[in-house]
């Protein structure tokens, strides 16, 4: 029996703040419709071009929101269920960049594999819309739905290569394990809702800072399950087991998106749930994230060393990078979140470029991913090999690349938050994974190509993507100031200007 039926007052929707997401969704629907109406021709350019321009339009729509968020603080949209602050805008643009790079890589790939059609691009745009929606989710239910929009499209993308058995297997594994993680996350949401009486993250923060729970078992169980569910999406150990299989089996351009776009959205959700909403329960979740970060760093780096398949090697390396990003979360300070935002922005270019090289070297069939297939790449395709060298050095954290600074800032935040041992483990894991990258570099430059080895063809789209990625990787490494300033402003705009709880969102560490 419901107590009383009251008229439902619907919240006002500010569409201008939702415009970037709506553009992505609209672009996807339009592309699907046009793709169905127009006659199918082979070798069409417009699918990829349309996707790139949709992503550019979405990035342009983020632009005015940046200034609004910077000057007036976070925009609360739809009864505070969605929130546009600097971090949303910055990472929203990063996701746009990931979509553009993926679309450029996908064009040549789909042509080579004879899979041309609008469907992969439609799914990519839909998934990116979900990802962007997730960046601003300020309600656990919105977070869940955005995560599903993001994930379900990627499940299909993983299996888009219908004639390749490995692609189907990757899709099935990703789907089953991803759905399991989603269910666990949802159960966690239900328990947190039961403990706090709300699903709104601001509401949860306010409830926890003004109430002392006598029995917080329900809350802690729920928080643990949310950590598990989101940890799966960002491939943190011990929820990482799917990543190597799915990365190896999925089409290489799709992996570029998985390692960039999906990770960005997952970490944004971790920041909102843990660093902001559960800031009063820091002492409870920080040790858990500490352990998860250590495990992720060590599993990722140690297992990457013994891989002979370059895509698997990159998969384990991306796990170890997730560990570095978790170090930024574990600090639970505004410096940690800034470092994380810098890491995500630069890593997107590096990892998309890396899997771009894997796309090119993979040849028709997408199967040439063994270390032996990279033998003598320095002679066969000097420019591609040089690009890969830059990406590998950046991932290893060599100075003058963006990867070095990304790791440096994250470790700095960890030291400021007095997590010395965690910083030490992170540095150690960086050294271990450098060995794995070195193996690839040695194969490319140290060995002569086989006699029957042919040069590689680089499609125009992939060429643009690689040039952009190399430029971003070196550019952010040499001139990091614009991006660090942006990250600083972005995180500063996250804190509510409300006077009654100053600095509640970000207690500074140290």
């Amino acid at each position, binding site marked *: 029996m419901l*107590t009383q039926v009251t008229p439902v007052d619907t919240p006002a929707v500010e569409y201008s703040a939702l415009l970037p997401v709506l553009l992505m969704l609209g672009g996807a629907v339009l592309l699907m419709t046009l793709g169905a109406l127009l006659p199918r021709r082979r070798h069409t350019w417009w699918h990829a071009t349309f996707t790139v321009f949709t992503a550019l339009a979405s990035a342009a729509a983020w632009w005015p929101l940046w200034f609004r968020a910077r000057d007036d603080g976070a925009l609360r949209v739809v009864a505070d269920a969605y929130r546009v602050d600097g971090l949303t805008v910055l990472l929203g643009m990063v996701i746009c960049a990931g979509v553009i790079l993926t679309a450029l890589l996908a064009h040549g790939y789909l042509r080579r594999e004879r899979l041309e059609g609008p469907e992969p691009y439609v799914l990519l745009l839909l998934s990116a819309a979900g990802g962007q929606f997730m960046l601003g989710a300020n309600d656990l239910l919105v977070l869940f739905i955005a995560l599903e929009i993001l994930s379900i499209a990627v*499940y*299909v993308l993983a299996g888009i290569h219908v004639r390749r*058995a490995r692609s189907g297997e990757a899709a099935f594994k990703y789907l089953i394990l991803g759905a399991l993680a989603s269910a666990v996350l949802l159960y966690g949401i239900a328990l947190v*809702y039961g403990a706090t009486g709300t699903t709104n993250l601001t509401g949860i923060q306010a409830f926890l800072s003004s109430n002392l729970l006598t029995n917080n078992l329900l809350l802690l169980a729920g928080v643990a399950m949310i950590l598990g569910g989101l940890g799966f999406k960002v491939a943190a150990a011990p929820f990482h087991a799917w990543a*190597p299989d799915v990365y190896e089996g999925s089409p290489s351009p799709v992996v570029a998106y998985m390692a960039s776009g999906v990770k960005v959205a997952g970490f944004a959700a971790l920041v909102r749930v843990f660093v902001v909403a559960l800031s009063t329960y820091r002492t409870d979740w920080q040790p858990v994230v500490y352990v998860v970060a250590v495990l992720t760093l060590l599993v990722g780096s140690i297992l990457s060393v013994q891989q002979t398949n370059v895509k698997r090697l990159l998969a384990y390396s991306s796990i170890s990078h997730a560990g570095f990003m978790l170090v930024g979360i574990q600090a639970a300070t505004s410096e940690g979140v800034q470092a994380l935002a810098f890491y995500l922005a630069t890593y997107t270019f590096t990892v998309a470029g890396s899997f771009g090289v894997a796309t090119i070297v993979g040849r028709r069939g997408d199967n040439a991913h063994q270390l032996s297939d990279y033998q003598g790449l320095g002679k066969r395709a000097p420019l591609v090999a040089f690009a890969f060298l830059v990406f590998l050095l950046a991932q290893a954290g060599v100075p003058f690349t963006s990867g070095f600074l990304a790791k440096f800032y994250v470790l700095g935040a960890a030291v400021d938050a007095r997590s010395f041992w965690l910083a030490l483990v992170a540095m150690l894991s960086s050294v271990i994974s450098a060995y794995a990258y070195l193996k690839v570099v040695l194969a490319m430059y140290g060995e002569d190509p086989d006699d029957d080895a042919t040069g590689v063809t680089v499609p125009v789209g992939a060429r643009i993507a690689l040039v952009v990625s190399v430029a971003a990787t070196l550019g952010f490494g040499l001139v990091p100031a614009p991006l660090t300033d942006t990250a600083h402003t972005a995180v500063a705009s996250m804190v509510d200007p409300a006077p009654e709880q100053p600095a509640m969102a970000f207690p500074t560490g140290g």
Partner: protein
Amino acid sequence: MITAAALGAMPYLVLGALLFSAGTFGLLTRRNPLVMFMCLELMLNAVNLSFVALARELGDLRGQVAVFFVMVVAAAEVVVGLGIIVSIFRRRPGATADDLSLLKG
């Protein structure tokens, strides 16, 4: 005499936890892709039960609304999942999840 109201939400939460565990166990141990999907539905519906029980306990409608969202998401997930299963297993009728073992290492 013990009435349902006196017990509160606890029995429903316990039932939800049991169903969720049963679903998880089934998903991880069964090898038939369709049964795995049924287990997934069981897990999501266990969460739905918990949502409704907690909403009732809290006197708040949000938890009940959540159920509708979850049902929509579950339906979408199954549609996509069945599509993937059909596309994989069309060429290999009678295959189980154990037959998908190309990717390892």
